[in-house]
């Protein structure tokens, strides 16, 4: 091979090298953007799951107040709650489909202070944790009176 050809091949190799470097830079940039979008989507999905779990608790027939099968919104029946807390703990696996890794507590603030823990399945291996507090009426059907309570839902998402 003469010198001119060697230079030509050298040039081609250099061009190819630069081309691949540019492709690699572009690829790294693309991966970074995709990664950040994925993280963002994951975060949004976690938030939606947390909201979904909170809504499911609020509409649970096991807890909701009703009169003549007509549901009262934003209300938990204290007698149902007393009954449900044991059953829901006993059937933790059954309720896992609905509440996943979360802990659900109801605290009465007025007239007296009281606390019920109805579900608790926690994990140390979580990527995000959300606490949702929902003010809720606590209806005591025996005395026909309403208390002021807070439904606290802590969701842990992997």
């Amino acid at each position, binding site marked *: *091979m*003469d010198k001119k*050809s060697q230079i*030509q*091949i050298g040039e*081609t190799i250099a061009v*190819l090298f630069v*081309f691949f470097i540019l*492709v690699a830079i572009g*690829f790294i940039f693309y991966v970074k953007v995709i990664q950040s979008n994925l993280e963002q989507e994951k975060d949004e*999905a976690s938030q*939606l799951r947390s909201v*979904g779990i909170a*809504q*499911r608790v609020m*509409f*649970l*027939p*096991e807890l909701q107040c*009703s*009169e*003549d*099968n007509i*549901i009262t919104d934003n209300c938990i*029946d204290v*007698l*149902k709650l*007393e*009954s*449900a807390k044991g*059953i829901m703990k006993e*059937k933790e*696996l*059954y309720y*896992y*489909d*609905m509440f996943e890794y979360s802990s659900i507590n109801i605290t009465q603030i007025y007239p007296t202070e009281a606390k019920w823990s109805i579900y608790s399945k926690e994990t140390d291996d979580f990527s995000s944790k959300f606490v949702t507090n929902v003010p809720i009426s606590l209806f005591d*059907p*025996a*005395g*026909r009176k309403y208390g002021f309570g807070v439904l606290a839902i802590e969701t842990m998402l992997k």
Partner: protein
Amino acid sequence: MINKKAFEIQFNWIFVLAAGAAILLFFTIVVVKQKGLAETSTKASVLKSIEAIVAGAGVGTDTTNTIQMPDSAIEIGCNRISIGGVSKQYQSMVMFAPDLIKGSKLVTQTLGFSVPYRATNMLYLTGQQARYILIGDNNLAKEINKTLPSILTKEFHKTSSLISNKNNYKVRLIIFGDIDANSIGMGSLDKMPDSDVTAIKVNGDDQKGAIQFYQKDGSAWSLKGGSIYIGRSSLIGAVYADTVESYECNMQNAFSRLNLVTKIYKGRTEVLRDSDLTERPRCIDTYNGALTQLNKIYAASSNFNNINVETISEAAKELSNQNKNAQKYSCTMIY
């Protein structure tokens, strides 16, 4: 000299070929990987949407929705949803749907399962490409036609007639009253695969009744099994579910939920009866009567079968009367 020149030209070509192949290979790998990823991601996002529908079903009762999503084939089994290789298993899912949903438009409906108190919401899922044909002239047929969403591809015939083929991937016939399944002319439907043409024959009223499941067998109908329903929401479940197995799996799950909720109502009624504030004998009698019925429902909801459905239906009627009594005597209502 000539040989040297020829070698140079050949080498140049080999070099260009190798470099070109390397570039082509690189981009082919990237494209193939990206295609695979995009397909999995689409399947996962469709599955996520369905998961959200299943999760949201517990929140709203008596709702109907259409959901637009990427064109896909969703396979639904007992407690299982899968799209391609991506699937989700549930512990207990109450979702009545055909075994395969095709297309980009999903139709969802929810109805409360109340016997007599709400135990759960029943979720129904189907595609707009599936065709539902209701045949019958009794009140139940009219009621079911009204309950099914208008956005569904549905037809209502008062008498049995020849069914034309409209190129739907699934056809479901719902036959009411005394009409014999074999009196319905298959028409051009006999060209469709047997498993895609199914029917149910309903005998009963709004409260309870019997359902027979049929599947096309050539140009005739073959009976695949029988079951029962309790309440309208359960009958609607049989309309959407393709097979008797799928229907009974969902009903068993609904019964499990009813069992849990009944246990809670039992505990609540016992507390109400024993409460210091419940002094009036009429209230105590009402609660005792209600507890008898709740115990019956609790025992019968452990398993979905003919006898248990009968027991629950009777107990539900009685419990509903006790609830009215509670209201009449100004006692706290049972549910």
